[in-house]
């Protein structure tokens, strides 16, 4: 997955998890340690696709305008890169058996990747983030306090 696609997914997760807030590219960039400039370009593409809306002025930023339950990762990634094939045959009529065999293997991997991306929505990612956060808090609650003596 290319960096722009990754950044787009991070931005959409951030915006979809705060549907009532406007969040700036700088805020999202700071959280994911990327330049606001690069992120702004990504957000522009998402805006053209109708997935985010920018609000100008003081307190402005971006809001999520997509449907988190329906928007899947393949749709997002497709905005930034060609997901239809991972290996291209320059000229199929001239391709050797070896090139066809490698083409088939690459397509098999690409098919699995695409069906995985197509089945994961922004809502599913948000749920996974929540599960991860809950697991972390449970682990923290159960962790022994600093200075506790081990039970023997």
């Amino acid at each position, binding site marked *: 997955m290319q960096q722009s696609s990754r950044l787009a997914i991070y931005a959409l997760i951030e915006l979809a998890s705060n549907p009532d807030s406007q969040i700036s590219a700088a805020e999202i960039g700071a959280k994911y340690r990327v330049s606001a400039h690069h992120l702004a370009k990504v957000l522009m593409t998402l805006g053209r696709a109708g997935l985010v809306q920018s609000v100008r002025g003081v307190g402005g930023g971006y809001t999520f305008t997509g449907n988190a339950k329906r928007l899947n990762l393949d749709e997002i990634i497709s905005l930034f890169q060609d997901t239809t094939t991972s290996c291209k045959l320059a000229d199929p009529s001239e391709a050797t058996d070896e090139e066809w065999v490698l083409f088939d293997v690459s397509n098999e991997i690409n098919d699995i990747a695409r069906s995985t991306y197509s*089945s994961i929505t922004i809502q*599913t990612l948000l749920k*996974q983030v929540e599960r991860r956060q809950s697991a972390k808090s449970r682990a923290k609650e159960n962790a022994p306090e600093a200075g506790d003596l081990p039970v023997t």
Partner: protein
Amino acid sequence: MSKNSEEKSPENVLRIRRATSDHLEQVVELDARITGKSKLDYWQDIFERYAARRIDQRFFLIAEGPEGGDAGIFGLIVGEVRGWEFGSEPCGWIFAISVDPDRRQQGIGEALFKAMCDEFRQVGIKKVRTMVRRQNTLHMSFFRGEGMMAGPFIQLEKKLIDG
């Protein structure tokens, strides 16, 4: 199922319980509406194997409204505990889940999935698995939404006859 479980759906209370032979006709009808094929023999066999035998490890659950089966079933799920095949520790396998197309997006599939996971947990099973056709985005998205991820096995196949 040790006790009937009840889940709140947006519209009313959902009852999830074990299927009995009385549900056969409704199950066949629901499946035919979804798949476009009526498979009485197949479902009769499933009822015999999953609703009548070894029911401590086989679970055929149906979801219905508060008024019971008179209004028809809203959905079904079938699963069983399987172990040691392909070098796997015993785990729960879900191999059928269907929800009435007119009652989707109401949490029925999720309630069935959770009830099945509870059944597996009660018999000491720690992992649930299923298999989904790659192009079947409806089921893939549903199971993903329930927290399922790719497991440690990859299914392989080979054509035995050309064509």
